[in-house]
């Protein structure tokens, strides 16, 4: 219900801002620097025309529909596509298709309004022909106004583009601000950036529209003129020619229309974001019986829509930080019975969240570990056997270099390419430069792989990509040989040997494994499939931590409450749960530490350019790590030496001691 009011308020504000935008648009579109007074008075007069008022009403409807889509599509946990195929799947998902189509229609409507308000040559779709036959007077032919059509089409294009970017940039994600600010101030702060981004984006869109129109412009023109029985004006340049498109006033008005469209829609989106992420005040203890469902412990423990849960956790964080009175309520005992229900409910939910995260991270780490373990022995063996028969390798090189021309560098999957880079330095010294670029020779890559696996620094590779991507690269390049070279049976033998040396499983099992491997590598060889299926390592990590904002708030709220309990908790309700809290935090700390030591996890957040889109979800894991450490330090500095009396396992005690000495 809270959310409903917020949505209504945000829509109301964006509709209220619409006339303002429209007025500015009208003034700028009819700009005339040589007659400033006439220009101003004209635009004043234009604001009250029935056209404009009708357009504003129509655009209010558009804004309403856009808002409905915002509300329908928003998410507090971003969905991060791990591979390109997933992204493609998202784009052709029916939901998204509807979104795109509706946005394209809305874009066309806005463009129509813009065209009507611009007046001049853009106003109508059909105009009386200026060609010679109209002079006959008998029949006034109507001609197609291609300028108008161009604006409409560009509007549709921009709408579709907006919808596509909305998906790709995760604009439906609601990022919660790092500091609390009043809504007006937040809006004012983001407005300049919004206007600037819209202007720049519109420039790119105009370029793309022009290119598209140059190639495909004749299709809609022919279609419209046949269905509506309009003629083409032979005197005017058709717009799918260079001379027709190089009309400065046309480009300017298209750009302005794009800016207008993007600003109004972005403002709607921004207002929705600001209203939805505003902190909400949940009561800790119900004053009336019917409010029980709305109080904080109840909401945390039930399963409300995710945004409500986020708001509740945010409120928990705020109350633990700023409000002594509400903290008192948390620490209080229930009136008959004397149970600390509030504290139990809140702490239980926070601990649940944190241990869930711990579980998730452990699972992910195990998956990552087994991934390496399954692959490495086989490839290691393969490498060793290959290195023993190096002569064969060299023999084959000539063949391979020929093949390599087929798989040119550009077609290689980007991931494989990046993993090759560190190898390059290693292999060139050994093999000399007789083969040119190491990229072009899979055999050389293989050589590098051998070196990689056998060299003494096998275990301690500096570059994480080498280790992780090594096996994958290996399988793909070895299969190249399998398919095309006389060495096809070679790996069969080696794999069989692996089997014999190990626990000696049945031959069929080995054969099946081998086949499976073959199919996989056959598929992975196909560049296109690799392109779509290859998982982006960064994206998959981001996906694991996509809902980390919840955990960050839980950590902050819990640690602040525990720290405040040192002086404010009169009944000692927190003391009973302190060992559990410490255990959970320290376990999570261990797991998170381990996660950041995984080879593929970069230890630094990526650079964020100043863009309108919030990309904070990409760096949530760093925020989680920092706030986890701060949370533990907050508890240890508050309690100091008293923590020695808390019962925790010996290992955790050691860890705590380190925190007490500020050595973590």
């Amino acid at each position, binding site marked *: 219900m809270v959310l409903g009011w917020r949505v209504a308020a945000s829509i109301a504000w964006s509709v209220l801002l619409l006339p303002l935008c429209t007025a500015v648009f009208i003034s700028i579109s009819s700009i005339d620097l040589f007659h400033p007074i006439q220009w101003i008075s004209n635009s004043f007069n234009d604001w009250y025309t029935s056209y404009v008022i009708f357009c504003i009403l129509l655009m209010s409807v558009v804004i309403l529909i856009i808002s409905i889509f915002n509300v329908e599509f928003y998410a507090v946990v971003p969905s991060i596509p791990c591979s390109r195929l997933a992204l493609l799947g998202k784009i052709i998902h029916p939901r998204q298709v509807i979104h795109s189509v509706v946005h394209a229609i809305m874009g066309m409507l806005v463009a129509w309004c813009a065209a009507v308000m611009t007046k001049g040559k853009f106003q109508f779709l059909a105009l009386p022909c200026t060609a010679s036959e109209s002079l006959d007077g008998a029949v006034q032919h109507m001609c197609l106004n291609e300028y108008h059509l161009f604006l409409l089409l560009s509007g549709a294009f921009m709408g579709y583009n907006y919808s596509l970017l909305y998906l790709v940039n995760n604009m439906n994600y609601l990022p919660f*601000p*790092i*500091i*609390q*600010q*009043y809504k007006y*101030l937040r809006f004012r*702060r983001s407005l300049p950036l919004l206007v600037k981004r819209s202007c720049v984006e519109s420039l790119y869109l105009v370029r793309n529209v022009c290119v598209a129109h140059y190639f495909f412009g004749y299709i809609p023109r022919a279609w419209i003129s046949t269905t509506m029985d309009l003629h083409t004006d032979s005197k005017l340049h058709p717009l799918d020619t260079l001379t027709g498109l190089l009309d400065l006033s046309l480009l300017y008005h298209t750009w302005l229309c794009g800016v207008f469209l993007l600003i109004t829609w972005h403002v709607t989106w921004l207002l929705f974001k600001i209203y939805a992420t505003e902190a909400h005040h949940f009561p800790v203890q119900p004053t009336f019986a019917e409010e029980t469902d709305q109080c904080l412990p109840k909401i945390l423990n039930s399963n409300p829509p995710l945004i409500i849960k986020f708001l509740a956790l945010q409120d928990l964080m*705020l*109350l633990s*930080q*700023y*409000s*002594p*009175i*509400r903290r008192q309520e948390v620490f209080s005992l229930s009136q008959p019975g004397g149970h600390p229900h509030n504290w139990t409910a809140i702490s239980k939910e926070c601990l649940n969240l944190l241990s869930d995260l711990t579980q998730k991270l452990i699972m992910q780490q195990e998956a990552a570990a087994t991934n390496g373990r399954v692959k490495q022995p086989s490839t290691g063996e393969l490498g060793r056997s290959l290195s023993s028969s190096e002569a064969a390798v060299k023999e084959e090189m000539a063949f391979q270099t020929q093949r390599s021309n087929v798989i040119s560098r550009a077609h290689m999957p980007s991931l494989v390419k990046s993993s090759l880079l560190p190898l390059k330095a290693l292999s060139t010294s050994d093999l000399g430069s007789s083969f040119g670029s190491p990229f072009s020779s899979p055999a050389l890559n293989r050589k590098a792989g051998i070196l990689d696996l056998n060299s003494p620094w096998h275990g301690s590779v500096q570059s994480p990509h080498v280790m992780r991507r090594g096996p994958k690269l290996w399988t793909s390049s070895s299969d190249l040989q399998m398919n095309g070279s006389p060495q096809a049976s070679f790996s069969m033998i080696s794999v069989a040997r692996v089997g014999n040396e190990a626990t000696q499983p049945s031959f069929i099992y080995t054969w099946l494994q081998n086949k499976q491997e073959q199919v996989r590598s056959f598929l992975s060889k196909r560049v296109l499939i690799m392109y779509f299926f290859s998982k982006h390592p960064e994206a998959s990590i981001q996906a694991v931590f996509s809902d980390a904002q919840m955990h960050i708030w839980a950590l*902050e709220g819990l640690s*602040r409450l525990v*720290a*405040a309990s*040192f*002086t*404010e908790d009169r009944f000692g309700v927190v003391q009973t749960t302190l060992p559990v809290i410490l255990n959970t935090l320290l376990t999570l700390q261990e797991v998170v530490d381990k996660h950041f030591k995984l080879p593929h996890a970069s230890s*630094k*957040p990526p*650079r*964020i350019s*100043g863009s309108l889109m919030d990309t*904070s979800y990409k*760096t*949530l894991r*760093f*925020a989680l*790590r*920092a*706030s986890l*450490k*701060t949370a533990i*330090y*907050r508890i240890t*500095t*508050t309690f*100091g030496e008293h923590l020695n009396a808390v019962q925790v396992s010996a290992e955790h005690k050691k860890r705590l001691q380190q925190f007490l*000495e*500020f*050595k*973590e």
Partner: protein
Amino acid sequence: MCSLALFPPPPAPGDVTLYECHNALVSGHIYEKLPLAFQDQLADLPVLTIPKETLKAHSRLEHSTKPAFIHHQETLWKRCLNAWRDVGMCGVLNEVANAEEADLQWMKTGSSWALALCHWVSSLHGSLFPHLSLCSEDMIAEFSQAVDWAGCSIRAFAWHPHTSKFAVALLDDSIRVYNTNSATVPILKHRLQRNVASMAWKPLCASILAVACQSCVLVWHLDPTSLSTRPSSGCAQVLAYPGHSPVTSLAWAPSGEMLLSASPVDTAMLVWDVSTENCVPLQWFGGGGVTYLAWSPDGSKVLAATPSAVFRVWEAQMWTCERWPTIKGRCQTGCWSPDGSRLLFTVLGESVIYSLSFSEYSGEMQGQVGGSKTASIVADLSETTFETLYGEARIGGEVHSMVWDPSGERLAALIRGNPETPESRTIVAVFRTRNSPVFELLPCGFLQGEPGAQPQLIAFHPCFKKGALLTVCWSTGRISHIPFFFVSAQVPCFSPSPSPVVALSSSSASVREQPLFSEL
């Protein structure tokens, strides 16, 4: 009102202030030992001297590689493009105006006209905010908390908030981190670490140091257990924001989540979420920039001084601010009482300390700073002549920097002497303070260093158990620690969470409005 006349005379020349015991400052010879009872308190604090001569100056003063290459005339187009990239529009105009090509006469005149207009506009802007015409090094020297930032070997100093560890920024743009428990002294160097104006350790963290540099904020992640003396520059996070340089002041939230950075050029101060490198600019036009930041120890308020005669107090929950115009000059420095209810500040051009009290903070009054109506003068530090056995001593003047110890019992003010009279000198005056039930400011004494040494920077140790410990950096490059032994009336605030002193503060509300004096 407390005045310098009430102070005991400064120690005899040649003597050095050693410690405070039984409410009196003890001075003596520099090699004198502390009394036995206190010796173990200070045994492991490093006292060091970093003379200017030992620091290697820059081998290369200019930061571009231009002088290394032979001059070569490029076409005008190329030069304009380069100038656009390096300097911007003004550079292009300058390039065109000074072009030697003869056939572009009209363009040359046009661009020189445009350039003149630019200069005129910028001079107009500069006359509104004169500090904008300074070059960035002069600007840092002007607004730094160090007395002689440009000339002294020590440029910034910061104690770690929880452990006995401090960082010293030196003239050669390196930072050394001293730790009482380990002999290794990490030296931090980074390509972007130039002209360090300020440093701050992250609270509730083992070893994260934020450094305000000329072009950015660097955040060093040091491993406290590491034995390396030269952490690689990969350990440093670079936080840069267009238009936000030079950075002259930094402040961490006492809860450790956010970092504030300020630049005298940028009207916005930035709130950084350091772990994700996100920042939120808090824009407030007027004043022309932000020079000095001080976050109250309870985390509820932030003082932001500007280069013009106005300062602001931000409330740190909803980030609204109260504006305080001063009469004479800009706010030079300020410090907060431990409970965040009182702000002491000084103004350039006046030799007094002002006090500003705030209503008790509670989370229920969102978005209100809650300052009182007027600031009251609590100390008069105008020039006073002391008749001592060894001759006259003239002491007094503007306060350059001011620190309040974490227990709220001692206040140290670095008083800069009058530059016109040669015999007046820069000196540190120490006050005894009490914040509740009524605010009191009592004289304690002057601190004196070795002969010829002027105090440069002062800082209190954040968790000294036996009272307070003031660290003074002298102009000779010496860093000395002066302990004040006393029994604190209230438990030193070890945790950053606001300590409940509710009962005490309410009683002082009635007397808060009028200026409060202790003895006169």
